[in-house]
């Protein structure tokens, strides 16, 4: 097979391309041709297809997400806002905290252990890439009915995966949720949050600047796993195998990630990087185009230099591979040696794969031939935008009319007793310690509060006892009844949980789990929930600093309940003053606040 070079593509404009199989729409393919002034090469098509997928481009959601910026409350606390890997919040004493919540729903249904494990791994690298030491994780989870046989397959794997990865990384798990509802039967929600701490001056951004600076890929070798994962995620069916026979599931290596964390933090300490990006969905396609797009110049990459686990991979596959535990750094030439030395110290493979150029194009070469020549912004930041139709579903009124007032009341004390027992015995109310006892909450020696507390609290400075508090909440049933108010209730609950520990709530991250955006009813839920959350954040004075959207959580026509999961971060100047949840001593008064 001849290599599909840029030159070849220019000479063979009519050659047919699998844009459809790669998940692109006809007009999107046409736009790529227009941007390039020719047909894309196979490698370019691979890059555009993954980067313009729903998962990477937020094409259905971004018109709504804009509100988080437009309605952002006035605050001095935000050092880095939406758009970077994660937002950064000033918590005083020269410290900054970055946190973000992400989903790994579809992979966790296919392979629960690895899906959940790599979900934790991915969010931890996001936090690391901002320059922060990750200090804790949380895991809001949703499963189908507790007694459904498939829940018995999915739940133990997910919990073991979250624990297996997080425990091995040495990140205390300080909270989360376990919710059962039949609507999540074929679409469990595995959301993962990570929080990290740094000094203000350590903040790093994902950008490639300074012509001549080197592009270094470090961490695990690139393999054939997860190729097409992004396209599969973006499509509503699991059986679309895409262009390749490679599996869409990745296996995580938490040990490699732990080395990556320590190695990267040492590199930060010596100020060796000018820009940095983690490799997640869309792998190298994403990292190179985002770094180049956010920077000042262009970038040139020699793809042959990428260390491979499987020598048979094609250049397209190398660009799309989602192999885990990899990072990409931009390093000044005179700092490269020291950079590689630190990687060697931590047994981390590191390779110079290219450099920042004077130009404005992202150019990728394979065996000396040019296979990619694109404006990086067109790949990373100027993907399609959809204004999908949305409409309040006609069943919404019926649903709302069916309120609790219509339920039968217990007739006598025996019935009341039975109802109370049913309630407290339900899996959603029961203690979650059978899950949380599988997570290490003590590691790092800074955990002030963790499960079963309303929010987790970690100390971030052992000398001054400065700390942060975090809570995540969400309620799909409320959100289904009224997505606008449901999102606000989730926000309010997380806000209260943080405030109740004695911390001052500062900022919000959110994970928006919804059904198919092609369904106007789902799109309406999404529009309402984002509007509700944005209005709520404005009212409470806590900006949204970042988050994640997971769409297509549905089986056939049946979507999950709209499930915005909201995380609130607060600061507590002295963790000695934290308030635990339990009653204190005998004789203390119990007060009820609020209506």
């Amino acid at each position, binding site marked *: 097979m001849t290599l599909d070079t840029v030159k070849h593509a220019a000479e063979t404009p009519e050659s047919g391309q699998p844009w459809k199989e790669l998940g692109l729409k006809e007009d999107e393919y046409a736009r790529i041709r227009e941007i390039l002034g020719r047909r894309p090469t196979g490698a370019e098509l691979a890059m555009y297809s993954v980067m313009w997928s729903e998962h990477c481009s937020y094409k259905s959601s971004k018109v709504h997400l804009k509100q988080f910026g437009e309605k952002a409350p006035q605050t001095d606390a935000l050092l880095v806002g939406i758009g970077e890997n994660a937002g950064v919040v000033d918590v005083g004493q020269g410290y900054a905290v970055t946190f973000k919540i992400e989903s790994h729903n579809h992979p966790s249904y296919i392979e629960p252990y690895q899906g959940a494990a790599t979900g934790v791994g991915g969010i931890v690298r996001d936090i690391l890439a901002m320059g922060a030491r990750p200090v804790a994780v949380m895991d809001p989870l949703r499963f189908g009915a507790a007694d459904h046989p498939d829940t018995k397959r999915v739940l133990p794997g997910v919990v073991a995966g979250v624990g297996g990865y997080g425990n091995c990384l040495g990140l205390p798990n300080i909270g989360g949720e376990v919710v059962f509802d039949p609507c999540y039967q074929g679409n469990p929600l595995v959301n993962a949050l990570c929080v990290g701490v740094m000094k203000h001056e350590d903040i790093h951004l994902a950008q490639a600047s300074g012509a001549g600076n080197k592009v270094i890929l470090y961490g695990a070798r690139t393999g*054939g796993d997860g190729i097409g994962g992004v396209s599969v995620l973006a499509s509503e069916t699991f059986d679309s195998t895409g262009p390749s026979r490679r*599996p869409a599931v990745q*296996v995580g*290596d938490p040990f490699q990630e732990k080395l990556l964390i320590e190695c990267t933090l040492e590199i930060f300490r010596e100020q060796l990087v000018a820009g940095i990006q983690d490799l997640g969905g869309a792998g190298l396609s994403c990292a190179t185009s985002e770094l180049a797009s956010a920077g000042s110049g262009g970038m040139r990459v020699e793809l042959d230099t990428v260390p491979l686990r499987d020598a048979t991979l094609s250049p397209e596959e190398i660009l799309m591979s989602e*192999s885990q535990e990899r990072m990409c750094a931009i390093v000044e030439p005179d700092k490269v040696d020291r950079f590689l030395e630190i990687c060697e110290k931590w047994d981390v493979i590191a390779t110079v794969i290219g450099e920042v150029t004077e130009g404005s194009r992202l150019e990728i070469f394979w065996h000396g031939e040019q296979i990619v020549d694109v404006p990086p912004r067109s790949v990373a930041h100027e993907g399609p935008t959809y204004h999908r139709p949305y409409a309040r579903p006609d069943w919404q009124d019926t649903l709302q009319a069916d309120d609790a007032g219509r339920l039968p009341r217990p007739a006598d004390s025996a019935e009341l007793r039975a109802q109370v027992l049913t309630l407290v015995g339900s899996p959603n109310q029961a203690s979650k310690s059978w899950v949380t006892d599988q997570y290490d909450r003590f590691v790092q020696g800074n955990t002030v509060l963790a499960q079963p507390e309303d929010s987790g609290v970690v100390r971030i400075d052992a000398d001054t006892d400065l700390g942060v508090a975090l809570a995540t909440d969400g309620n799909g049933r409320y959100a289904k009844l009224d997505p606008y108010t449901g999102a606000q209730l989730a926000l309010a609950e997380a806000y209260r949980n943080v405030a109740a520990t004695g911390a001052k709530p500062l900022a919000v991250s959110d994970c928006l789990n919804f059904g198919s955006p092609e369904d106007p009813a789902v799109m309406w839920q999404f529009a309402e929930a984002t509007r509700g959350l944005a209005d709520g954040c404005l009212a409470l004075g806590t900006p949204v600093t970042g988050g994640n959207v997971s769409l297509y959580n549905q089986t056939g026509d049946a979507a999950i309940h709209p499930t915005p999961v909201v995380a609130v971060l607060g600061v507590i100047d002295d963790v000695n003053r934290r308030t635990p949840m339990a009653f204190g001593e005998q004789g203390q008064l119990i007060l009820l606040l609020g209506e």
Partner: protein
Amino acid sequence: MARVVVDVMLKPEILDPQGQAVQRALPRLGFAGISDVRQGKRFELEVEGPVDDAALARIREMAETFLANTVIEDFDVKVES
């Protein structure tokens, strides 16, 4: 009583962190000449009754649906003599 062995290995294209860690350690321990290590699971099943085609078919089904996750793993069923 007969013994049937089910070997479950990660598919070749899937990352095997354990095998990799073992392989990387070998040279340090003074063992050269091993170019790759893969680590998998071995199940030894004691089967009551005859291990005929029907029994083997059942065990294969068990391996496929339970002992291995065929999204990431291959398996192999052998009767031990």
